[in-house]
């Protein structure tokens, strides 16, 4: 039995903000019949997904379904075993400068002696070889970009502190600013709301939704609970049992679609406040059961 928490009223009945399928030829990322294998085991296969410019897409699914693997395949960190994957019109890994990436559950321990603003600056030019000059036009431009990114996520109050002394929500905002500083066309976020308390979850979800809308950035976000982001979403991709279903939330998060995907009876309930609850979704045994024990849709 899964119970979802967080309140985003009645989002499932609201029609999608944009077309269910992006127009042909404008896809920011596209998977066709794609499969990924890790150590000989097929994680998922036959996955088709198209994401258009400026869309906010959630990647959902139970633990071990390969949600993070999907992001790593898109980044080119993991190879695609078969099928076709295009990211920003190129094979994975080629367009990394145009992608902002937020890995899963990254936190800095209390002794990390680096400022949030330095961390953000690394997102701008940390991959350049050679020494940066600490003065001059280029350095001033970089400092301005860092300040803008800090303002964009509202992190001005703590960007000068050691990142290890910031709270989980503050660290998440700093890392989001780092991912945004190059003004990427595509943001890949891996469970950014994980480990945040409920008000921080709602605030971070609203921030990501606003950035997606205002900056025109395409957002692909792995989530284990769809409810905090439901009202901001255009489409979802649901990974389970080695396959995927994609479409609007209203199309995908239904008893029929999920039952077909999982191959066992699954029921989607809508709570009176609009939250979605998935019941009967099989969990892989003894894998991260602590986090999902009795919690999270999906």
């Amino acid at each position, binding site marked *: 039995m899964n119970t979802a928490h967080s309140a985003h009223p009645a989002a499932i009945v609201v029609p999608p903000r944009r077309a269910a399928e992006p127009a042909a030829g404008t896809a920011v990322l596209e998977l066709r019949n794609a499969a990924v294998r890790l150590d000989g085991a097929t994680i998922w296969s036959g996955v088709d997904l198209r994401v258009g410019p400026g869309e906010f897409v959630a990647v959902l699914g139970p633990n071990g379904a390969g949600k993070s693997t999907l992001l790593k395949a898109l*980044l080119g*960190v993991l190879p695609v075993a078969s099928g076709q994957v295009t990211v920003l019109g190129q094979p994975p*890994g080629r367009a*990394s*400068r145009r*992608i902002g*990436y*937020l*890995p899963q559950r*990254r936190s*800095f321990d209390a002794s*990390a*002696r*680096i*400022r949030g603003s*330095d*961390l953000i600056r*690394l*997102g701008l*030019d*940390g*991959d*350049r*070889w*050679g*020494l*940066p000059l*600490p003065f001059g036009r280029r350095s001033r431009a970089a400092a301005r970009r860092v300040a803008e990114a800090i303002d964009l996520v509202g992190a001005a109050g703590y960007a000068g502190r*050691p990142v290890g002394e910031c709270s989980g929500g503050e660290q998440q905002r700093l*890392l989001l600013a*780092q*991912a945004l500083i190059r003004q990427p066309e595509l943001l890949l976020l891996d469970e950014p709301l994980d480990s945040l308390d409920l008000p921080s979850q709602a605030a971070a979800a609203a921030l990501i939704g606003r950035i997606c809308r205002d900056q025109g950035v395409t957002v692909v976000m792995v989530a284990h609970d769809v409810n905090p982001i439901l009202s901001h979403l255009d489409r979802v991709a649901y990974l389970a049992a080695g396959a995927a279903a994609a479409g609007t939330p209203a199309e995908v998060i239904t008893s029929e679609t999920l039952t077909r995907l999982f191959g066992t009876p699954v029921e989607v309930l809508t709570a009176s406040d609009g939250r979605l609850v998935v019941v009967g979704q099989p969990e892989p045994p003894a894998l991260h059961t602590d986090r999902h024990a009795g919690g999270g849709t999906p």
Partner: protein
Amino acid sequence: MTGAGFSWNLLADIRVMWSFPFMVNAFRAGAIVAVVAGVMGWFMVLRRQSFAGHTLALAAFPGAAGATLIGISAAYGYFGCCVAAAVVIALAARHRGSTGSRAAESALTGVVQAFTLACGLLFVALYQGFLNGTTALLFGSFLGVTAGQVVLLAGAGLAVLAVVAVAGRPLLFASVDPDVARAQGIPVGALSAGFLVLLGAAVAETAQITGALLVFALLVMPAATAQRVTLRPLASLVLTVMIGWLVTWAGLMAAFYSPYPIGFYVTSFAFAAYLAAQLAAAARGRARRRPALAGAGVPA
């Protein structure tokens, strides 16, 4: 040490010291080593690889002892053995990189450490009568630094610094944030292996002044002190080098004018600097907290 005693007239004291060619060599070697150890140590502290650094330092002992045993310059032994140990640790870490197990890496580092120390002991036993030199190998000596050795230190040091200057920024990124760095196309694994090799070279340099056991006086202490004082990467890097340089030269001076070994002085001065930085940070923290507490006491 010499006929001329310490006079508190620092300029005159320095003039006396620098009238001896071996002291000029020692000051030159000390400066080179302090800069190289400071820069590499700064990254090592940031990357939390002090244990690997310590292992490389202990590899300096069999290197120097082995070189003396087969009758070549100890400097080659230092470089050869430290860099070889670095390559072993880097290769093993890379081999296990797919599982990313830090515990496995540290266990393997411990294995390398114990084995190198045992080798050093064997070499010392094989070379009978060498025992007087063992203390110098372990705890440092500034006597007998030759002009040729200074040139070798400078050459190796410049090579290390040049690589760091080119790769420093991606290395910093890969050190604090490896996942994102990898996604940005930075070769994190290769950088990590290359860093260990450079660290091996830096340790080999440092061990020639401080001895194998006191390498951390120049490798860890200045960096740890500077990272306590400032959070700015460039400022703390510069401060690290300055602290290292200062404690080395002060240590040389103290060792020259007293009967006690240089390793003790360099380490003690570095430790004093670290202690002062910690106390200052604690005092600053208390000063920051006090107004906040006072504010909380005021009724709304």
